[in-house]
């Protein structure tokens, strides 16, 4: 007889369900991304997710664990999907593969596998590429409508795997906008322009900007926001981390904007540009590398928000979500330690 301990009943949401739910909630964002930026990210997502899954399975076999059962928790797939969403659409395939292998093998399994990694694997892989190949990693495609070249699936595949589209254009050529300038992301544009002494209003009239933030990017962020809200609604993630991060980012940028309306990006631009919403709802909420106490999660989120603002405003890179998440990951133990909730019955003598 195999004796079990109480409780004998359990709620039905298991780890693999949680992971699957997060992946599914990425889909609106992925579709919007594909609409605005072409097939590139779909290819990257497939590439990264496949590589992550295979790496995880290989390591599981090396560690003498049942590969199929353990990889069925979907966590490696999720890492791959997030990595694929995060990288620029036409990144050379081998870079994506390197990042994916690094994320799973080094960041996750060298620390002991699922549940033991200190850092968010997807973001660590992303940052590895960002540091190693900064040009490639900031070479974002112009939004479809602005792009000079419209790329089909075949073109996209060629571009990712050979570096040249079917028509023989290189990545840099493809990135030309209709104006004939190399495209930059809205955040990049703002940063460069402000650096060059332009005011925000002067910068914001450029075609790369849409109605309230970057063209296309604003819709992308809205799509991730929608997916994220659904995750919160289904209690897969809690309010604390995205709430903390968005509020903090808003507060920081609002203060900055109030002090220097011409010299800094507006709160709207911060909230709906770059990887803000993806980061807030899908990346920072990775349970393993985030804080576990409720208060700690607010602090953790707020820290990420503040770091994102700092990096975007004063850092060397146009976006800072990945760095912010990794830096906050480092503080998790400390934050958890100081944010322990007061246990029942341990009231201070009043």
């Amino acid at each position: 007889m195999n004796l079990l301990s109480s409780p004998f009943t359990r709620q039905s949401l298991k780890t693999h369900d949680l992971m699957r739910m997060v992946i599914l909630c990425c889909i609106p964002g992925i579709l919007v991304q594909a609409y605005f930026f072409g097939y590139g990210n779909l290819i990257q997502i497939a590439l990264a997710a496949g590589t992550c899954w295979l790496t995880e399975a290989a390591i599981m076999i090396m560690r003498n664990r049942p590969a199929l059962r353990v990889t069925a928790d979907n966590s490696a797939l999720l890492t791959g999907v997030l990595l694929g969403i995060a990288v620029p659409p036409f990144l050379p395939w081998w870079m994506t593969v390197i990042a994916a292998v690094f994320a799973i093998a080094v960041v996750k399994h060298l620390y002991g596998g699922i549940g033991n990694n200190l850092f968010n694997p997807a973001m660590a892989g992303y940052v590895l590429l960002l540091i190693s190949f900064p040009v490639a990693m900031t070479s974002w495609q112009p939004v479809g409508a602005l792009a000079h070249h419209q790329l089909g699936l075949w073109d996209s595949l060629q571009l990712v795997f050979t570096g040249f589209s079917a028509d023989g254009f290189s990545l840099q050529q493809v990135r030309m906008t209709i104006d004939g300038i190399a495209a930059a992301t809205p955040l990049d544009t703002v940063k460069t322009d402000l650096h060059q002494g332009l005011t925000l209003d002067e910068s914001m009239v450029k075609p790369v900007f849409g109605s309230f933030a970057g063209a296309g990017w604003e819709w992308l962020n809205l799509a991730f926001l929608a997916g994220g809200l659904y995750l919160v609604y289904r209690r897969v993630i809690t309010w604390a981390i995205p709430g903390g991060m968005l509020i903090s980012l808003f507060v920081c940028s609002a203060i900055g904007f109030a002090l220097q309306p011409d010299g800094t990006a507006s709160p709207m631009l911060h909230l709906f540009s770059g990887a803000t919403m993806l980061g807030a709802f899908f990346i920072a909420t990775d349970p393993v590398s985030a804080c576990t106490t409720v208060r700690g999660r607010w602090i953790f989120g707020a820290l990420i928000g503040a770091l994102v603002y700092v990096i975007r405003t004063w850092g060397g890179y146009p976006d800072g979500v990945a760095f912010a998440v990794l830096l906050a990951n480092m503080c998790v133990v400390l934050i958890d330690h100081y944010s322990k909730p007061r246990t029942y019955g341990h009231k201070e003598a009043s």
Partner: protein
Amino acid sequence: MIDVKQLLTTDKLWDYAGGVFPEYRKEQSRQLPIHSAWIPPLVHVPIRQHIGQSGNLIVKAGDQVLKGQLLTEPTHGMAVPVHAPTSGIVEAIGQSPSNHPSGLNEVSLTIRTDGQDTWCERKPVSDASSLSDNDLLQLIRYAGISGMGGAGFPTEIKLTPVNPIQLLLINGAECEPYISADDTLMQAHADEIVAGIELMVRLLSNPVVVIAIEADKPKAIEAMEQASANLEHIRVRSIPAKYPSGGERQLIQIITGEEVPSNGIPADLGIVVHNVGTAYAVSRAVYQDEPLISRVVTITGNRVLKPANHWVLLGTPINDLLHHHGLDELDPVIVGGPMMGYQLPHAEAPVIKTTNCLIIPSQDELPSPDQQMPCIRCGACAEACPANLLPQQLHWYALAEDQDKLNEHNLFDCIECGACAYVCPSEIPLVLEYRQAKAMIRTSRQEQLKAERAKQRFEARNERLEQEKQARAEKHKKAAEARLKAMADKQSSASDKSSAESSAKQSAAVAAALARAKAKKASQQPQKTMVDEQGQTVPDNSDIAAMREARKAEARAKKAQKQSSSSSSDGTSDKSAAVAAAVARAKAKRQAQASSNEPEAQQPKADSNAADDKAARVAAAVARAKAKRDAAQHSDAKPAVTASSEQPPAADDKAARVAAAVARAKAKRQAQQATDTDQKPQPTGAAEPAQDKAARIAQAVAKAKAKRAQQAAQDDSEQ
């Protein structure tokens, strides 16, 4: 302090952190009526069914007992008696499987029922106001009532609190899924429950009463409201259905907003919490004189055809009970609810005072966890924890057995409600880990305490030995001085009494000899250790080491002896020699003790007096021991050497004393009756007790001689 009067009017309820919403599944069983009790052919009544010690058994196997008869007497504070649940004959008192997750055996009475269900004499009280508080408490105590909610704390103790009680909280929350025992009890016996509450109110000097019932029991709420309608100090509160609202501490928080201090009890806040079942039992005990011999048990689960509530006699074996209800396959049976209950290892365990539910689930009803996954630190457990703990951290520390960290994270505030494990997406058995960790910490605390006590005892003993040694030395010194003085007095005053003089001289000489012997022994000791210790660094441990070594050698020799069959004649001679030696040794020792203050002439007499009826047993035992030792020396040369490194000096000393004693005894005896003991052959058997005192002494002397001869031979051979 809480404003209790306000509790009677306010609509405010507080909430506690966390909590979960499991599927309740109570509908199956909550319908009335409560089925009446079935009398099984055998009942097993464990003598301890609560927290605390068992009472003293007052029946024995074979006794005829009547229903409600006291089986154990509550002789001390935390003891709660048990009663015969029906009439019959006590068949056995022994170990039988307990109704406990461990399934370990516990002392139980097995009663073969006669089916008559004959009550013992009862004295129901119709008017409780005629009783004094003390009488009332005694009634409750002797009715064997302990908390019916789960923990089983003696009710009488909770009704005699140290602090004044302002609020009596009656727990009818019953927040666990499946269980509806309290629900139906409230529906069916609301009046009696309220009567029990009134008795409690009286004993607690009129506190305010709040009856808390979860909102999913509308019928019970209605019944209780009706029963208490004209009582102003009682209020029935409907609380939101959330698990674990029925936990004592959570319930207090819901009703009053206060938290019970971590190491405290509700009484510290002026609150006492009792279960509705307990209130009912109190009322039955007083007004019907019916001790706690049955309770309502929910029998439910998908494999039960008609889930319902039943009165069950305490002690009814669970397997019999379920067979009676048409269930054959009894694996698994869950006792209690699915959140905090436990799987019963042995289905023959009895229903006890705290058993409120039996669940016999189908395979897919309460599925066993698929596969435990690593913790992903999702924090769902921390959100669910009603005690605001961090289960995910406790999980790591429990695995690492890090006691300091576990204590730092307040492991002992865990109420083991199971909410954390319920929500865990990785299906980690968190509660089990915490229980194990708690058990580990408790054990190590106990060990620490025990080590501390052992240390104190060791030190106290060392001190005592030191004092005794000094006292002895002092005494010897004084005795010697007194003797010398007496001698001097005698010499100076009465020189003509030559005999007296000689005896005095003799005694002085004896004293001197003893002193010499002692000195010699004392000088031998360090010498010996020095010789022995040449290789070793620390001289202190030689005795212990040698002893241990000797024992090991002995054990080895014993084994060797078992294997090699020694000749029978050798064995008998060994044995008899051993007997002789033992007797002689005993005599010598006693003589040495006596000689310091007793005249020699009395020695043999004292010896013979002392050798009492136990002689035979002593002789036999000593003989065995001696034979063992001799055999060890004979059969194994190597251990004999190590053992002898210690023994010869002692033996020499002893031999000398024995020789002296024997010589004296012989002289005395010869003068008296001149028996030719010397010529007597070896004694026939040591175990045979000699009737004649003289003969026995003679025998002993002979034995001593034989032993000495043998020892001398041995020494020779060894040297």
